[in-house]
């Protein structure tokens, strides 16, 4: 029997524009192609601009992970100019980035990923009292009452009866892949709604330090939010109390709702611990500096690489081994399409080579995506929560080992179960637990520093361009919610001469490289992967969503002129 050609475009419940093509044979996926269908060219736009403005431009790469490019950009410029930010500014950035992780991961689970596992219509058949008993067996969350679940169920019933299904129109309801009992579905739907309110509330931490969310403000050299306990327009006791409260509520929701829900749902889908593993290599660049940025041993989440799923060895990460390929991407290189270029030597000339629109299939095309294919030492790497948790686990990170070990024990599976669609989703939850807790430490450190009289949030000595060298370059790394991110900046005569980003969703969603190696999405979709009904591709959504795609981030373009740089600075 010939393979069936499958197209899913748009992939919804993600950030950005993604198309997946696949071949299905006997209920399995035998081949897959990942296509980013948007291009914006932001790095080209950076050339000639004031490096202190770069954070604002690159921040607009993504409005979901709305702080990560801004912070990576500040770090790159600070690295280039030799700026060491004050400890308070680092703690504030950690709090902002920490809350970004926690809020983003919870939104991902309930609002982007849950409908792959949760059948909203099944919730109508649930017994609210039994739902409350189920919830009580999992968590002390005080909202989990029979009354509350009955109210949610009643509202869902009316919503469905109205015939106006809104965002739930044409969901894959009733698909045999849905395995949760009605009570678990009802519980998840109730928490879907609660999480909508929770996310709006806790993200206000960004507003206090950065003035707004999405796209809070940052500052090269520190943070603009001055600290003055006697001031009315500064970080004072009132603002700090609000922050303290938000951290508490973030942690409580994660520990009492998100993490228990995730584990409960996972227990009904354990076969997905053997599906969707994909590439066997994992990269984490390290995040949450608790000292200076160059003190890599003081990162809360460690840096490192796992090769070939070998958890006995953590390989050191060497940024000079990163290269990008365009063999399957709509770009051209001067050296030819099979070259792999380090970001410092990178070049990009967009050159569309696909069929005219409207497209039918791209899978026969040699080039099929606006994403490049990053490789580390020639190998495709998965980045993101799973990579970070594997590196932490293998590095002996005690808190990571405890949270992950606890979850593995509860699900009665071994560490190998992590190399899967389900493992990716579980690692995201484990990481959220760790960070929700760790925010307390950063908050306490900030308060203690203020108590000791240190209110500095900004270093001014390298602010003025007259203090800068004629040329400079820097690397800003940051492990973002979706994985390892790098910004490379070069500055000449006070202006940006070149700007590059290599971002998480490029690592994960990129297409085939010069040797034909597929990217992580493509590898995952063909790793023991079912697809029962091509018209209702819920299994594809499960695995793609487990990566939490952010395609606007993934699509980037380097300096148009492609200058070669001889001096390569590696942190």
């Amino acid at each position, binding site marked *: 029997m010939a393979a069936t050609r499958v197209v899913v475009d748009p992939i919804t419940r993600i950030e950005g524009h993604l198309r997946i093509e696949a071949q299905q044979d006997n209920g399995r996926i035998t081949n897959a192609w990942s296509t980013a269908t948007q291009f914006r060219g932001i790095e080209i736009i950076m050339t000639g601009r004031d490096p202190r403005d770069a954070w604002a431009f690159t921040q607009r790469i993504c409005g979901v992970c709305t702080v990560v490019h801004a912070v990576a950009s500040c770090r790159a410029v600070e690295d280039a100019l030799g700026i060491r930010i004050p400890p308070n500014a680092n703690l504030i950035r950690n709090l902002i980035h920490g809350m970004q992780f926690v809020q983003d991961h919870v939104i991902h689970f309930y609002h982007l990923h849950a409908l792959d596992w949760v059948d909203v219509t099944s919730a109508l058949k649930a017994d609210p009292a039994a739902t409350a008993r189920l919830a009580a067996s999992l968590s002390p969350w005080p*909202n989990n009452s029979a009354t509350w679940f009955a109210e949610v169920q009643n509202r869902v019933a009316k919503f469905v009866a109205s015939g106006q299904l809104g965002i739930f*129109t044409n969901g894959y309801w009733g698909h045999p892949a849905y395995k949760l009992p009605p009570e678990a579905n009802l519980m998840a739907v109730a928490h879907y709604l609660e999480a909508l309110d929770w996310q709006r509330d806790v993200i206000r931490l960004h507003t206090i330090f950065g003035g*707004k969310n999405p*796209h809070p403000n940052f500052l090269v050299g520190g943070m603009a939010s*001055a600290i003055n306990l006697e001031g009315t327009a500064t970080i004072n006791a009132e603002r700090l109390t609000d922050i303290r409260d938000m951290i508490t509520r973030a942690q409580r929701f994660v520990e009492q709702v998100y993490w228990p829900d995730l584990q409960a749902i996972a227990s009904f889908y354990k076969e997905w611990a053997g599906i969707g593993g994909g590439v066997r290599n994992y990269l984490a660049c390290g995040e949450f500096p608790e000292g200076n940025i160059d003190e890599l041993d003081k990162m809360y989440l460690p840096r490192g690489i796992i090769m070939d799923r070998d958890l006995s060895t953590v390989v050191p990460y060497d940024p000079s081994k990163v290269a990008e390929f365009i063999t399957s991407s709509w770009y051209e290189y001067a050296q030819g399409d099979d070259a792999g270029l380090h970001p410092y030597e990178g070049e990009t000339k967009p050159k569309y080579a696909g069929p005219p629109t409207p497209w039918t299939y791209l899978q026969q095309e040699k080039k099929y995506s606006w994403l490049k294919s990053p490789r580390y030492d020639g190998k495709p790497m998965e980045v993101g929560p799973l990579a970070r948790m594997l590196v932490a686990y293998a590095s002996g990170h005690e808190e990571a080992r405890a949270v992950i070990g606890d979850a593995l024990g509860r699900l009665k599976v071994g560490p190998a179960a992590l190399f899967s669609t389900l493992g990716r989703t579980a690692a995201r939850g484990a990481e959220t637990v760790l960070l929700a807790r760790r925010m307390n430490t950063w908050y306490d450190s900030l308060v203690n520093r203020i108590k000791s009289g240190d209110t500095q949030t900004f270093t001014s000595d390298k602010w003025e361009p007259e203090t800068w060298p004629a040329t400079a370059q820097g690397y800003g790394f940051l492990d973002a919610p979706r994985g390892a991110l790098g910004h490379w900046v070069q500055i000449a005569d006070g202006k940006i001469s070149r700007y590059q980003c290599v971002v998480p969703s490029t690592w994960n969603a990129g297409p085939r490289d010069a040797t034909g190696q597929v990217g992580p999405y493509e590898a995952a979709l063909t790793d023991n992967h079912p697809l029962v009904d091509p018209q209702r591709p819920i299994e594809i959504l499960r695995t793609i969503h487990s990566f939490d795609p952010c395609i606007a981030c993934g699509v980037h373009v380097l300096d148009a002129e492609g200058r070669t740089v001889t001096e390569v600075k590696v942190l």
Partner: protein
Amino acid sequence: MYYPTTHPWSGDQSLGEHLNERGVSRRDFLEFCGSMCAVLGLSKSMLPSLAAQLEAIKRPSVIWLQLQECTGCVESVLRTAEPTIGDLVLDLVSLDYQHTLMAGAGQAAEKALSDAMAANKGKYVLVVTGSVPLNENGIFLTIGGRTGREILEEAARDAAAVVGVGACAHFGSVQAARPNPTGAVGIRSIITDKPVVILAGCPPIGDVVTATLVHFLTFGRLPQMDSEGRPLFAYGKRIHDQCTRRAHFDAGQYVEVFDDEAARKGWCLYKVGCKGPATFSPCPIFQWNTRTSWPIGAGHPCIGCTEPFFWDTMTPFYGRLPNVAGFGIESKVDVIGAGLAIGATAGVLAHAAATSVYQLRRRRKDEAVAAAAAATGGTTPSERTKED
């Protein structure tokens, strides 16, 4: 406190019945209408009319297209929330097509779009985030294998109203900054046969989106707009004229460098680059994220993100406005301050004058990048402004 959004609104209920069932008293409702009157700049005599119309409406179809963008505007609308009742305003509509949240994907999603357009022909509200890339026949954005331009033109044809949300829909935002490699334009360059309201900002405040929808659903028309398509109720005044730090500007009390003593006293940010004097925005009044704070409130200068082509006209972001704008010497500050402190209607004209000053500078800048723009086939901001 949490304010759970657990009350989907069934099609057979009016808003009044729905609110009643939700435990929102008529008094609460009228209070909300009163605050909406204030937000929309209506007199209190309009309150009974607003309340009656809000109570009577059913959930109209909203189709939301996400084009060339970063999803920040969607996230901003997700943050919209006034206690108890603000979340209902999102339930005012039946959100029939919205990539970030919708359950179905691929064909199922595209069918939801075509079904909603057919079933609500001439009646649906089209919300658009993102810009439209025009270079190379629009190949820089496709959805379901079709270009963004084709999708937008089709969806706009039978829309009752078009609401462009955010700087990308406004003028193309960051991807339209020079040299605009993809030829990105705002949606008013595509939709020319009907009014388009533009909720400017990168992103706009979610509550502005809510209030605009309320306005349309209540009065059956879009709110009055300025030349940029921005509703006056939100964008009618400059940040500078509503700023909580304005007294320090008038008193000559400026932050000279970040985190100095003046910064710690909350003084004016003009000298570290604030673009508030040239920016029409509701930020100081509406504030952000359930009125928690706003950019200047958190110590960072305004970057002017509600203004067209601000990536080119308002940069460098930390440059002082008179220098940036070419006003020259600093003694002009007071003159500018006084010149800007005029009425809202004339303010649009004054603003246009200020913008023309920017364009002088922009033209100088653009000469330097003209070759690059031509090479990529992109248009410069100045060229597009002329077209507008």
